[in-house]
């Protein structure tokens, strides 16, 4: 099982590099689908079956279809490299490197290594999640439904002919 985890971790990182480095948006989208599916496998290995299924259905199924549809609709081709954003180029690398180093130091120092049993069979299917969702988290659930309604209305208004 740990081997499987590391294999899919490597696949995730390689595909994420592809997302960032590809010049054509369609290839980036396909790489992002690989990232999402291998993350679903990681969730399965972490004992989160429900989240893994939701990841495949909602993310890889619905959201990425929307992305690919919009890319094809707008006929997005190669990205033209521009020389207008010097600030991002000069500030981006040092800031990102500083963040990465800092977080790795925090991780190596403060996270206890030997705590918790990993990948032991611990079935937590959708039933306890549903109980938790409709008992402790009812208010966020209802607020989320309002958010989705507003998003649908907003998408319809924004995509109308004249704005």
């Amino acid at each position, binding site marked *: 099982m740990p081997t499987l985890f590391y294999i899919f971790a490597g696949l995730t990182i390689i595909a994420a590099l592809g997302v960032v480095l590809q010049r054509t948006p369609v290839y*980036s989208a396909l790489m992002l689908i690989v*990232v999402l599916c291998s993350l679903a496998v990681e969730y399965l290995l972490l004992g989160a079956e429900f989240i893994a299924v939701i990841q495949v259905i909602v993310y890889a199924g619905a959201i990425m279809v929307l992305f690919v549809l919009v890319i094809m609709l707008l006929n997005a081709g190669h990205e033209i490299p521009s020389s207008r954003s010097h600030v991002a180029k000069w500030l981006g690398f040092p800031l990102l490197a500083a963040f990465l180093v800092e977080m790795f130091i925090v991780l190596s120092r403060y996270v206890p*290594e030997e705590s918790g049993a990993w990948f032991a069979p611990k079935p937590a299917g959708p039933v306890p999640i549903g109980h938790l969702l409709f008992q402790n988290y009812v208010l966020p659930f209802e607020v989320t439904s309002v958010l989705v309604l507003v998003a649908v209305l907003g998408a319809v208004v924004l995509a109308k002919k004249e704005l």
Partner: protein
Amino acid sequence: MVPLSHVLALSLILFVLGAAGFIFRRNIITIFMCIELMLNAVNLAFVAFARQHGQLDGQLYAFFVIVVAAAEAAVGLAIIIALYRNKESLSADDLNSMKM
């Protein structure tokens, strides 16, 4: 046995890759996909901590993040379509009408 720090390191690497794409890419659709990458990195950290503590709350937070990401994708892509209709361009450098 995979320690928690390895899962968090994977999450961190994914987040930094997404942030790098967000900063350095110029196509707004690619920038949007890099945001999704960062959201997924945070989700992985949530699920890993839920596993570490033996509770399901972290998984619920990941679930809410996925729902919010779906809403965000719908609205964001509609905004991108509207921008393309007005500007005929997908480059972030051309969308500067709020600049002085």
